[in-house]
């Protein structure tokens, strides 16, 4: 089976841990990575790519020192190596200008507000993960028990 990663980025340790906890459901089949800054995330992306691992979903906070979440996700959106990686912005402090940038430049796949509903986060990641796996042409049957069935039905054509 291919190694598929879900990356969480947030400068606050507690938030990071709580996101990871909410995504516990995926941990036996997917790798959940935690990064405390955008730079750490970019470094990790480099390493994962070098090992030919997939990055299915990046869940990022927006307001972080040095490099913001929107800047990080814009970089990922423009990087050929991560074509198809799903990007989720999880923030309570984005201005309208940030939001416009996030949609136009970072091509967000989803936007959730802090404080988030764990059930909603789980469901959103499930759908994004399913989309990623089908769009990449990976063997969905290997992961089927963790995927979102309605999304799967919608996307499978052959």
């Amino acid at each position, binding site marked *: 089976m291919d190694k598929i990663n879900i990356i969480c980025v947030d400068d606050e340790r507690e938030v990071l841990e709580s996101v990871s906890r909410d995504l516990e459901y995926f941990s036996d089949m997917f790798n959940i990575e935690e990064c405390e800054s955008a730079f750490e995330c970019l470094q990790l992306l480099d390493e994962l790519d070098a090992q030919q691992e997939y990055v299915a979903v990046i869940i990022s906070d927006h307001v972080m020192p040095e490099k913001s979440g929107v800047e990080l996700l814009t970089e990922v959106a423009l990087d050929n190596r991560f074509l198809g990686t799903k990007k989720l912005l999880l923030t309570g402090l984005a201005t309208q200008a940030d939001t416009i940038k996030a949609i136009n430049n970072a091509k967000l796949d989803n936007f959730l507000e802090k404080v988030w509903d764990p059930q909603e986060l789980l469901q959103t990641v499930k759908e994004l993960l399913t989309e990623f796996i089908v769009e990449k042409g990976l*063997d969905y049957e290997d992961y*089927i028990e963790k*995927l979102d*069935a*309605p999304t*799967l*039905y919608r996307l*499978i*054509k*052959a």
Partner: protein
Amino acid sequence: MLKKYLKYLLPILVPLLILLLPASSFGIAGMTLIEQRVIAIFVMATLCWILEPIPIYATSVLIIVLELLLVSDKGLWFTKLAPPEELGNIINHQTIMGTFASPIIMLFLGGFFLAMAATKYRLDVNLARVLLKPFGQDPKFVMLGLMMITAIFSMFMSNTATTAMMLSILTPVLALFAKKDLGRVAFALSVPVAANIGGIGTPIGTPPNAVALKYLVNENSISFGSWMAFGVPFVVVMLFIAWLLLTTLFPASIKEINLNIKGRFLKTPKAVIVYVTFVTTILLWLMGDLHGMNSYVVALIPVAVFSVFKIITKEDLKKISWDVLWLVSGGIALGVALDKSGLAANAIAAIPFADFHPLLLIVGASVLCLLMANFMSHTATANLLLPLVAALGASMQSLLPYGGEVVLILAVTFAASLGMSLPISTPPNALAYASGHIESKQMAKIGVILGIIGVLLSYAMLYILKQISFIG
């Protein structure tokens, strides 16, 4: 720990052991080196398809390549060093490579083109919408409608694609059921069951049927139309039984169901070409030999038409399920090797099958097939069993009063499609199980009952076909 590696080790070590054994240890008189290598390849294929250390289509490709390397006239130099009488019948490499483009593969390719064009121009969804209307809103009849449409579609499209489409239509409805309403289970199960059964209806409905066609040649050949003449009635009866079973075992307490399918029939010139080609191809298939073309030739007409009019584009071509085509090719190549090496005939002569009662053989082979199909890919099951069964059937004189090898081949082919009691049995089952509305216990209950009824029904059908001299 060792257990984890066993699925990798066994498919390598056992065939190697077979290659190294002295030829005399197989109990087949005068066995040649080529025949021994074919046995090793066959055993490797069996282990690979059962244990799945590699994807099932990769096993097929491996079969073809190993045959080219080890038993073909252009194989590795040291494989041809032995004196001819010890070596046996070397197989022409063009014959082995030709399995990639055998007429049966072309028939399937034609089917893929039809299905792809139908999906792309939304013929499938729009037909589903129109055909479902007369079934009203009573859950019982809506389910009957769903099952009939699923079955009809799966006769021409892949069972998996049909299931995905129908389940996506069904998803919003399933959400409306009360948590405890068993009707939810019935509906979620009705789609994969109908898709599995529907595949039996036509030669292109499901890959095992295509594999069977490879062995139904010369005086035993069955045309597209005559396959449907017995396949469709079988599907209808099975569907009706499945429907009764589902509605009694899992009755719905909800009173009304509204399937809401959006969309309109496309009326663009391209869409019209798709409709016309679709209908014409099926009519040509049904007409048999009236126009001089056989079903394999007819299958290539939609391929040409859709390519010429850019209905299937370069990008669409990449999405064709080449894995399914290769999976079938490997099965055909396995059959070719068994046949052309002379192994099939020799091995069957060595085992006293003639002493068995022919009915015992038909029942034994189809039950074994049903069992295997529940646990592994239907196509891989057919790939393994059909060449053996075909060789056996051809050599057994005592089978003739019961309809000859055709009966044996069809019984096994039908059984291959009836293995559907587990989520892993078929991709449609896996998809339906993923909906979360079904427990595996419930799927097993329906699957086991339908499997047994289906096999019994196939015997009855074959008996009748023999009585009216349709076959045999």
